[in-house]
């Protein structure tokens, strides 16, 4: 049982980060802290993808060792990469590589995360400008107060009319 848990330490770390992030989003009233929570939550997903792609003993996905094509020569003019291996009549690679695709996906996801964070921070700036606070509960109280005042005004108008 302990072995089962320890073997999957990377997944436990991801789950812990994910829960921390979600908890901050829901528990914190401070808008900046909510964005921090959101970023932690997203980061846990990035780590999840990266950990999926890692293979024990695998190297970066650049052909090396027994897979290095002899026909490359010094001028690197032959067909590049895996195509060259296939052209040489070899089937499959002999060394172990990590899966590059999730890394690429996560590069895109990081860009998406950064843009979301940027838009979120810009919104917080605008909220601070028009409300004078970045606490969600205070913003809500201000809105409620304004709405209540409007209603009172309407009632007073109707009473006078």
């Amino acid at each position, binding site marked *: 049982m302990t072995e089962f848990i320890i073997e999957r330490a990377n997944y436990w770390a991801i789950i812990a980060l994910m829960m921390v992030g979600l908890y901050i989003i829901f528990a914190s009233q401070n808008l900046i802290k909510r964005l921090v929570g959101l970023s932690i939550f997203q980061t846990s*997903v990035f780590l999840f993808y990266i950990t999926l792609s890692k293979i024990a003993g695998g190297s970066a996905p650049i052909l090396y060792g027994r897979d290095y094509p002899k026909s490359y020569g010094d001028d690197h003019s032959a067909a590049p990469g895996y195509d060259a291996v296939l052209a040489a009549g070899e089937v499959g690679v002999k060394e172990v590589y990590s899966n590059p695709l999730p890394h690429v996906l996560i590069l895109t996801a990081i860009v*998406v995360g950064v843009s979301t964070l940027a838009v979120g921070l810009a919104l*917080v700036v605008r909220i601070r400008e028009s409300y004078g606070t970045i606490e969600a509960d205070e913003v809500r109280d201000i809105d409620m107060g304004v709405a209540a005042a409007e209603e009172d005004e309407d009632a007073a108008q109707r009473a006078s009319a």
Partner: protein
Amino acid sequence: MIELFLTLAPDWALRHAAPLLVVIPMMCAPLCVFIPSGRIAWFISILASALSLFMALLLLAQVQTVPGGQISYELGGWEPPLGIEFAVDALNATILLLVAAFGVLAVVFSWPTVAAEVRAEKRAMFYGAYLVCFTGLAGVAITGDAFNMFVFLEISSIATYVLVALGASRDRRALPAAFNYLVMGTIGATFFVIGVGFLYAATGTLNMADIATRLPELEGSRTVQAAFAFIIVGLGLKAAMWPLHQWLPNAYAYSPSFVVVFLSATATKVALYALIRFLFTVFSPEFAFEGASFGMLFMPLGIAAMVVCSFQAVFQTDVRRTLAYSSVAQVGYMLLGLSLGTAIGLSAGLLHLVNHALMKGALFMAVAGVVLTYQGTTLRDFAGLGRSAPWTMTAFAIAALSLIGVPLTAGFQSKFALLVAVQDQGLWWAALLIVFASVLAVIYMGRIMEAVFFKPPHNPQKIHKEAPITILVPLWILALANLYFGIDASFPIGLADSAASAVLGGGS
């Protein structure tokens, strides 16, 4: 007619219609930002949306004529499943046509409201953000790659947060609304991407058609079940599936008029399309855990949305909030339709999806006309408008009748189709609840109509006048479409039926 259209279209458009639909608005978006004049940006947006509409029509015509009803476009010449694929079938083509048609109508209608609600120096950028949003929505609807769908979903969402926040110049409550939408939307998208990660871990591919062929071997796998749960929650958040709809009422109530018209007709619909795509094409209703989710999850949630949100709509004093809660309720009808898992159920859900876009588009356009001339959206601001703005309010009334589901309107056709589909499964109590929710719709729309047509103006000193012609024309196009498709519904029913059979036929 279809053949003539296809022969008239130029060859390059025929071959590259799928990517052009997405790329044209994407390229025009930065163009808008560099142009200082809002009016020119408006023209560019009309042009880009109209070209996209043309491409969407071409795709629909091609899908209907091509044997097999499937178009696949390899981006960059990389063959799927390794490369990213744009895959269009009868379901996509319908959604794309819906998005593009509403893009055109909404953007034509937009200029007077944007001029009134957005500051001059921001107008060009506003249209840029709209085009980015349009790109994202079209991309979600057209792509055949699961991760690509996430990217497009986020492109459209980030643009949407910006567009909603721009309502702040009319009402500062748009800012917290946009912030909450951002937090909820990002959680939803991240859940979706976790689900896609699990699917990739289980199948080793990201192409949706390829995932679908590999999933049957993995029947019962925990990884796949976890993927299913994460994807459903993520897309449910984006589609405002009850009870994940909390972001929607505020975002709709405070965003600029143009944005709410466009979003109410397209954004939740596209998310719902993604949900249908995953439920029926990628996963298949034959999996035990998914079959269970239909009866145990989607049907109760759909019915709860119908009843609870219709109730909430009755107690709103702001017309836009009433309509926003009504939108969540209508999403419930669509979920109920698809949760039946039958061809007629899915077809009824899709028909309601199209018709709901027609009626909510018209209703929000009419409200936008009132906001423009009267600056208010509360129920009392609407009092007596029937006399001072008869054209706007008659169109509003037609769309409201359609929302209720009065015979001879589009809303009746889809609700009737839904009733038939529900009866077909012997769920008489669900049929009763549909009728009950429609009665609630009579109450909440009736309150507005009573104020509009039978109450004296609340504040006679304020000027009441008709909305400008650029608002009235798209508004009446939609209102007449509501009537026309209520009398002769063969076109939308044909689209919905072929979409449903394409989806259900493709899975098995």
